[in-house]
């Protein structure tokens, strides 16, 4: 057996270029046309990519623009601060508006918060399990696959599932906000797991080792070093997960139901959320205005309300996004570079 250094010494003994083929490098010189071609290619790809980008922007901006332009006309304080009780057809209500979405905003916030409370701890702990306790293990791999599968569970199936679960556990025909939260958390958990997983993965191992080397237990290393370092990323992941579910309609129709008055109790009674509201108003399309109702009766008030509510929903998501960014910035990890 030779040692490594011996091995090298032997290899270095003879000139490495001995026996090397002789190369005519002129042959490989870039021709003028080749250079031009590469340049054209480069420009063409840049153009193509920019065009792809602009083409994609058209529908995206169209969605935004449609919502905003249709939504602003009915968006006012009255719309935000009243619910749909006492709304008859297209006639103005006693408060001077045409009904509002206060109940739906409350419903959306509470149900989403409920889903958040369920799925964030479970999701984060699951990713902790996958990354910190069982990384690369067989069990972790299959859980990883299942998380992927779960992220593909259609929302309507999640709704059916939550509805049936509550039928069994609570009683038939149960509708309440929490049931909606359960359905949504089914959709949220995989997103939280996946994004947290990625964030935990990029926490440098150095930090874990540094902590262990100080004689810190694993639990404290994870909570105080790993999770703390990954926090900004986890927060953005959670915001993404919220965004994923805040617009769900089908599962909430089945679980949280639909009601025109304000219900602040997440655990009892039906709750309306903004997407469900949008959907229901859109389904109504228009109302009848009898002659007796006078000029203040608006025939296509449901559509106007639908767009305005959609706009509010987008604004809520935007605010959540901004909060997330802010949180991420506050807890940002200062790294070198």
């Amino acid at each position, binding site marked *: 057996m030779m040692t490594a250094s011996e091995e090298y010494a032997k290899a270095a003994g003879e000139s490495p270029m001995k026996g090397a083929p002789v190369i005519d490098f002129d042959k490989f010189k870039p021709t003028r046309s080749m250079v031009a071609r590469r340049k054209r290619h480069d420009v063409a790809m840049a153009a193509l990519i920019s065009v792809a980008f602009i083409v994609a922007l058209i529908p995206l901006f169209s969605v935004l623009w449609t919502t905003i332009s249709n939504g602003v006309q009915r968006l006012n304080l009255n719309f935000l601060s009243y619910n749909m009780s006492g709304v008859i057809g297209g006639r103005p209500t006693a408060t001077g508006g045409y009904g509002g979405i206060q109940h739906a905003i409350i419903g959306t916030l509470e149900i989403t918060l409920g889903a958040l409370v369920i799925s964030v701890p479970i999701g984060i702990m699951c990713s902790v399990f996958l990354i910190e306790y069982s990384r690369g293990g067989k069990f972790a791999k299959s859980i990883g696959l299942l998380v992927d599968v779960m992220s593909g569970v259609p929302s309507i199936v999640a709704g059916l599932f939550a509805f049936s679960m509550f039928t069994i556990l609570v009683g038939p025909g149960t509708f309440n906000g929490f049931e909606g939260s359960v359905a949504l958390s089914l959709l949220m958990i995989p997103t939280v797991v996946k994004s947290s997983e990625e964030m935990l993965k990029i926490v440098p191992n150095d930090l874990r080792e540094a902590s262990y080397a100080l004689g810190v237990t694993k639990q404290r290393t994870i909570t105080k070093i790993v999770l703390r370092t990954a926090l900004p990323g986890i927060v953005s992941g959670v915001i993404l997960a919220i965004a994923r579910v805040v617009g769900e309609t089908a599962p909430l129709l089945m679980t949280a139901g639909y*009601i025109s008055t*304000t219900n*602040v109790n997440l655990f009892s009674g039906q709750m309306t959320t903004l997407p469900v509201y949008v959907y229901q108003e859109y389904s109504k399309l228009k109302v009848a205005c009898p002659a007796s109702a006078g000029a203040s009766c608006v025939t296509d008030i449901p559509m106007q309300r639908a767009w305005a509510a959609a706009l509010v929903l987008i604004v809520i998501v935007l605010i959540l996004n901004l909060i997330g960014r802010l949180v991420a910035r506050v807890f940002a990890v200062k790294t070198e570079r």
Partner: protein
Amino acid sequence: AALGACGNNEPASGTSSSGSSSSAAEKISGEFQGAGASSQQSAVEAWIASYQEQNPDAKISYNPSGSGAGVSTFLTGATAWAGSDASLSDDEVSQSKSVCASGTAFDVPVYISPIAIVFNLKGISGKDKHLNLDGETIAKIFDGKITKWNDDAIKKQNLKVNLPDTAITVVHRSDKSGTTKNFLSYVKDVAPDAWSYDLGENWPNEVGQGAKGTDGVINTVSQADGTIGYADASKAGDLGTVAVKVGEKYVPYSAEAAAKVVDASPLDDSAKGDNRVVVKLDHTTKTDGAYPVVLVSYDIVCPVYKDANTAKFVKSWLTYVVSKDGQQVAADNAGSAPMSDTLRAKITKSIDAIKTK
């Protein structure tokens, strides 16, 4: 509950609905849920709003989850009543034994609405503009046998109209729907030779395009030239509508015309179970000025409830809904046809069967 009231559009004091009957002996209070047919949604919302003016302590919600889902939920006992575009099946009647404290559930019509056959044809369609069609032509159009607007069958009936050579695009419901079933039963009754399909809530053939919900149909019809579809008449808006041949005349839809056909129709005696009021629509009626394409939607309730307060509510609710006031509120806001006194009398008898003690 105090908090829950926030955001309500409380009625300004002193306003009460037109000639509010002061007969409401006893105010109803409590939370009550109904679910079912989405066709009734606009009407139910108007009813709830007006009803709560008189019973401010009653908190009522209606989930327009669909007739099937509504009846299923009702049969689990989770709701006080169900709205349904279809009358109960025998099976459902017997299932209701386990929900009702005694007896079986029954259905009464509460919402009668004409189904408009809407079309979009450049230069011809428009608000309150009509094309004349008989049942057979309608059947052939919706079965894809007549494909052009200037087909002789159509021309013959509309001599004054200059029909273009535009292709007909049929628009029908893509979801399971009571509207479809009622429309099809009209077609099947008046033109059995031209319409061979089984009756059902799903659209049976592959002609034209399907769209989700009344909103979908109306939107789709509005979006292209040459389209024709059917939808709850109150949503027809600016689209042209078909005047349907009844007897020798062509009748455009109207609430009164729809009420007429219901009046002219017998009750269905084959409906098993007590207290049931099921209308067997006579689509082939020759009654003058009747419009036969009609959707009749029911409320389904128990004669005896396990909870007396619920029973009290249901009785008072149904009484209100079928009352002249209630029917007028629905007519004003949902464009439905107020039911006749004759029909109301029959229904009232059934309502009286609800035991509140």
